């Protein structure tokens, strides 16, 4: 009984405080910092900021947050060291004012303290073994290698045939060519009919069980349940930090971009590419998938988008 009471009191006391104070700073963090940093979630493009308020002096942090470009030009030793660690990706000047920086530092201090018990490191081994081939990929690879072998054999046979020169019987050759034409055209037609009916484009009147909005930006994906049209929406639209989807549901991802072209590529628990669509600024692409295997899914960016392209990823869970 006392436990329950204590819980209720804590929630009642902490939540409004949480809501008011955190809202401004956490929104700012979400808009400006979360692209490259986590707090306790591991390194991203930039370092994990958990405990950074203990590691660095406050006024250094304020200067760094408000004018990172200036500090790099002035060759501040810590700044230069950070630049090397990040693989030469500099922290951009985001136009953050000093009071905003102070609020962010308080937020970081709070978040770090809230994670007093160290969170278990995500159970990702350093490398995974190669995945097995997906059915489409296997078929494509086998078909490609088979046809390559055929081409190699035919060319070699023709080259070797020149050892016994003979004048060409053009009639037979043209007849053979006609056969070749019909076989090729026939095979292509069969392939067209078989494959054109199975495209990833959402049919006009079909229905999905859940709609998830995805906004891509350099170098981050943001999930939300309402459309994010411009960067300003990040302040008002609720963002889903840990997306969980039900197994077997038909999910529609509505993907857009806030800056340059990106690509939303979904890798399944077997770490095979399952589906993808482009993320374009000013446009929304609808990707319909049915995720039947429970587990952890990765999202990688598959359209080159700048220095952090290979670091741009997020996750979702299907259960």
């Amino acid at each position: 009984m006392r436990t329950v009471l204590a819980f209720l009191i804590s929630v009642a006391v902490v939540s409004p405080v949480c809501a008011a104070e955190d809202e401004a700073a956490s929104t700012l963090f979400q808009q400006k910092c979360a692209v490259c940093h986590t707090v306790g979630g591991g390194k991203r493009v930039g370092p994990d900021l958990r405990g950074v308020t203990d590691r660095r002096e406050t006024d250094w942090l304020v200067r760094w947050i408000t004018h990172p470009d200036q500090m790099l030009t002035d060759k501040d030793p810590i700044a230069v060291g950070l630049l090397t660690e990040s693989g030469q990706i500099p922290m951009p000047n985001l136009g953050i004012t000093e009071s905003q920086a102070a609020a962010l530092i308080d937020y970081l201090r709070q978040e770090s303290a809230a994670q007093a018990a160290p969170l278990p490191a995500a159970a990702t081994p350093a490398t995974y073994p190669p995945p097995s081939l997906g059915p489409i990929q296997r078929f494509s690879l086998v078909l490609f290698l088979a046809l390559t072998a055929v081409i190699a054999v035919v060319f070699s046979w023709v080259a070797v045939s020149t050892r016994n020169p003979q004048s060409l019987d053009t009639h037979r050759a043209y007849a053979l060519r006609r056969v070749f034409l019909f076989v090729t055209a026939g095979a292509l037609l069969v392939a067209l009919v078989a494959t054109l009916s199975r495209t990833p484009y959402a049919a006009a009147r079909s229905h999905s069980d859940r709609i998830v909005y995805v906004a891509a930006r350099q170098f981050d994906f943001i999930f939300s349940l309402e459309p994010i049209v411009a960067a300003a929406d990040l302040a008002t639209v609720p963002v889903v930090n840990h997306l969980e989807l039900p197994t077997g549901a038909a999910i529609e991802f509505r993907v857009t971009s806030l800056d340059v072209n990106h690509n939303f590529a979904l890798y399944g628990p077997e770490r095979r590419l399952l589906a993808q669509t482009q993320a374009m600024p000013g446009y929304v692409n609808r990707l319909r998938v049915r995720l039947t295997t429970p587990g952890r899914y990765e999202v990688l960016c598959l359209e080159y988008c700048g220095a952090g392209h290979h670091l741009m990823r997020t996750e979702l869970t299907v259960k």
Partner: protein
Amino acid sequence: MRQVSAITLAWIAVVALLFPILIALGIYMRTVQSGHLAELQSWFYPMMTLHGLGMVGLWFTAPLACVSDALQRHVKPSATVSWLALGGTVAGVLLLLICVFLGRFAAGWYFLYPLPLMGGWPKWSAVLFLVALTILGATWLVWSLDLLRAIAQRYSLSQALAWHYLVGRNEPEVPPLVLIATVSLIVCVAGLIAAVVVVALFYADVFGGIKSDTLLMKNLTFFFGHVLVNLSMYLGAAVTYEALPEYAGRPWKTNRIVALSWNAVLIIVLLAYFHHLYMDFVQPEAVQYIGQIASYVSSIPAAVVTIFGALMLVYRSPMRWGLAPALFLAGLAGWAIGGVGAVIDSTITVNAVLHNTLWVPAHFHTYFLMGLVLLTLAYFYHRTQTGAQPETRASRWMIMALMFVGGYGFLLMFYLAGALSVPRRYALYPPEVAYGASYAAAAAAFAAVFLLGFLLYLRQLWKRRADAATAQT
């Protein structure tokens, strides 16, 4: 045989200088991806940009120089324009070197709007990039128009496009070279105009702040790129039609089927570019289907007319083997193999799992590296034969073996990694696709083998030139 002209020699020198450097950049890229060279990792994307732009530019201009050289047997291109073309290309390349090395410009050779303006490099490097593109585009447009003008001096449009063959008349005789060159050059003008529009809209954004529609820019950019890359391939095929018959001792002439096939290519190549936009679901569905159909259909003229035609030409012919015809034949095989990889990827439902994985560079490196490059090198070798000693069988086999093993080994690594969903254009591989690093390491090694083969080829070419010079004096 005609003495090889100074301008062609100059282009050979350009290839001899730039190609090894660009290959070295490629080896650097795969080495970084294999996890080594960590201290140079931050240069990956600028070098990727330079490698892409350089290779596409080099293997557009070199085959065009070959076609210009081959056309001189039939028509008279302007020597002034030819030299201006070389000069303009060199100037453009220098500007690109500056903006990449000094400005760290790294938008990739696609330069997809709006990335060149939003990538974190200084604005001046983006502007310099646009200026370089302007110079290159203007140069190449003038060059293409001059070649068309030269053809037009002798043939009417319907003759140059061999329409009279379609109705059964064989006079006037139009060599396949002229037909293919005409088709390619018209298509080239179309692609370059698209590039002009793209660059103009870029300037409008940089200097006027007028934002362009990203889908429009994407369509125009891919139209330009697709057309440019494909017509480069056709230019290589054009010189093959011209030169290979001399070794096979049989003619390869235009006839109704050849005319029909290349006229069809003129239309199809303009429509097939939609296959680059399959994953842009906002494109109207109709054009996606057009893209797949056009891509499939485009394989028919190539396979049934050009490749089959070449095999028919060589089969049991009194073939005079040498490095040049061997490279011609090998190049056609490479084009065929790359075409297979391309047609597979141009299937929408397959593209959904292969798009922007390493399968994409796999297929275009195939028909470029083991296709167009071999055809162009064959033509260069073919043209430097005057009075020279033939190469020894040993050196011919050595060069071919190194290029084959190195080239196809390098390509196989791409195909395998792409089938395993390893993404393209990643400087480093994240843990989920970390196995990509071992494929990258093997690929770097194979590419080095290919480079060795190319250097041996260059040495052979140089020896020929020296022999030819002594033979003449």
